[in-house]
């Protein structure tokens, strides 16, 4: 009889380890790891089979021809399809919801506990929240006291177990150096993952806030100090913040900040971002796959992700972007946007524009005079530009494969070259407008 291969049991072990990791350490971006490193499973599998064959050969046993069974080939093809699918999904910013979370919470029953604590404070304070799991809602008030209402949910099989867990995790407000720490002590319980605490906090308006956690939303309103939140998985909503805001997340469904006087700094991975009325600089660094919206930013915006690099001097209007589209209205330049594949619409922008996309149509309406200096290129996609009648500019629009349409009229002249075409023209002494596409139509219109 042929000796059974080792690969079957090893794959089972690997799957077990993966799911276990997923369940125990949720904050590890496992999906990202697998999508990156799955080819090593193929390599390891191949090496393993090679060693098996060589051992069998050295023992002069009969060798299987081809080395792989039909079932294995099918499994390998499946692995390739799933693996490259995951990689493509990850590269385009798709995240899968956590599924390890629900399995444990199906067992047992939920017991609720409510407590509260308060501590008078004076002067400017720095308050740190340490709540592993659960939502935190913070609002500033005029009273010189920190008040915390806690709603603790313990999942257990019986009441004594739940009571014990409740006893192990007291709500504390303690002074630590020049900081005040509010903690829920969940990590002290024997089953930390089964406890979650929602906190309702009021504190003196001038406080600076620091939030730490691994799962749960943060809601901060009417605070004059700075806000710094880092979490494994959180939705963050900030309203009326006097200082700067820093948000660092490994996963998130939503980051929203409205009326912030200082800088806003967002880092990590997540879905939607919504920023409105920000007086300071805005920096977004990471991978956010949902809809990103920026409205009324008074200082420079810089967004950097794996596929997109965006810099704008000021945004009096709106920028909306998602995976496939970028729309900007009323921007103050210089504007610079480099992206992989997006359709781009820009209206009313000033100073200068530098635009580059690999795949996607570009639609430009500079609107106001004087016309900004423009350099727009697409590897594959149509480019339309609409220029005002009295604008002064020097235009050069080129397509390597595609048609060139002149709907502006004189003094722009059209020339056909091979499979492509060029539009050239100069009115007065204006900035240079360069438009280039490798494949697609270029069109110049008059507004």
């Amino acid at each position, binding site marked *: 009889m042929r000796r059974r291969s080792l690969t079957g049991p090893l794959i089972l072990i690997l799957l077990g380890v993966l799911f276990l990791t997923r369940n125990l350490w949720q904050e590890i971006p496992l999906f990202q790891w697998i999508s990156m490193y799955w080819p090593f499973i193929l390599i390891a*599998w191949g090496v393993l089979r090679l060693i098996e064959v060589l051992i069998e*050969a050295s023992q002069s046993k009969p060798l299987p021809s081809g080395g792989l069974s039909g079932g294995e080939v099918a499994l390998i093809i499946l692995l390739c399809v799933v693996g490259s699918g995951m990689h493509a999904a990850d590269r385009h910013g798709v995240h899968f919801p956590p599924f390890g979370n629900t399995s444990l919470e199906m067992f047992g029953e939920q017991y609720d506990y409510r407590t509260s604590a308060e501590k008078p404070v004076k002067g400017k304070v720095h308050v740190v929240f340490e709540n592993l799991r659960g939502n935190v809602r913070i609002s500033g008030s005029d009273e010189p006291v920190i008040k915390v209402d806690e709603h603790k949910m313990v999942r257990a099989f019986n009441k004594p177990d739940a009571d014990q867990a409740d006893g192990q995790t007291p709500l504390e407000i303690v002074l630590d150096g020049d900081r005040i720490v509010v903690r829920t002590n969940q990590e002290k319980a024997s089953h930390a993952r089964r406890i979650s605490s929602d906190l309702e906090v009021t504190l003196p308006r001038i406080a600076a806030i620091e939030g730490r956690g691994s799962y749960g939303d943060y809601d901060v309103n009417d605070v004059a100090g700075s806000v710094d939140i880092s979490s494994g998985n959180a939705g963050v909503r900030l309203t009326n913040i006097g200082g700067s805001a820093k948000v660092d997340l490994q996963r998130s469904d939503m980051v929203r900040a409205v009326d912030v006087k200082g800088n806003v700094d967002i880092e990590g991975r997540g879905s939607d971002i919504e920023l409105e009325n920000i007086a300071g600089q805005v920096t977004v660094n990471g991978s956010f796959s949902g809809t990103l919206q920026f409205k009324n930013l008074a200082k420079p915006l810089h967004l950097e992700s794996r596929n997109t690099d965006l810099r704008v001097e000021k945004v009096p209007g709106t920028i909306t972007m998602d995976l496939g589209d970028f729309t900007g209205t009323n921007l103050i330049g210089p504007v610079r946007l480099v992206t992989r594949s997006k359709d781009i619409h820009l209206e009313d922008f000033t100073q200068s524009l530098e635009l580059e996309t690999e795949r996607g149509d570009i639609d430009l309406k500079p609107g106001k005079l004087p016309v900004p200096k423009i350099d727009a290129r697409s590897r594959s996609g149509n480019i339309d530009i609409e220029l005002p009648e009295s604008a002064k500019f020097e235009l050069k629009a080129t397509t390597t494969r595609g048609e060139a349409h002149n709907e502006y009229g004189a003094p722009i002249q059209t020339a056909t070259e091979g499979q492509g075409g060029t539009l050239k023209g100069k009115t007065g002494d204006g900035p240079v407008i360069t438009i280039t596409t490798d494949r697609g139509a270029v069109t110049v219109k008059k507004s």
Partner: protein
Amino acid sequence: MISGNELIRAVRGPIILITIGTLFALDHMTPYGFQQTWPVILIVVGLLTLAGRATRSGPPAGGVA
């Protein structure tokens, strides 16, 4: 005793598997995409077939001196 030909045939699957795995790893971690490197698979299969022929017992295939 196992002939060289049998050995080559037995290692063919695992070697192709390792090649494909390496190409995917290159695709994900370096700028060399799978759409550029796939001919490597043809080369590896070709080399394995050649090695199989060279070690075959019996009358040599046409073209072998």
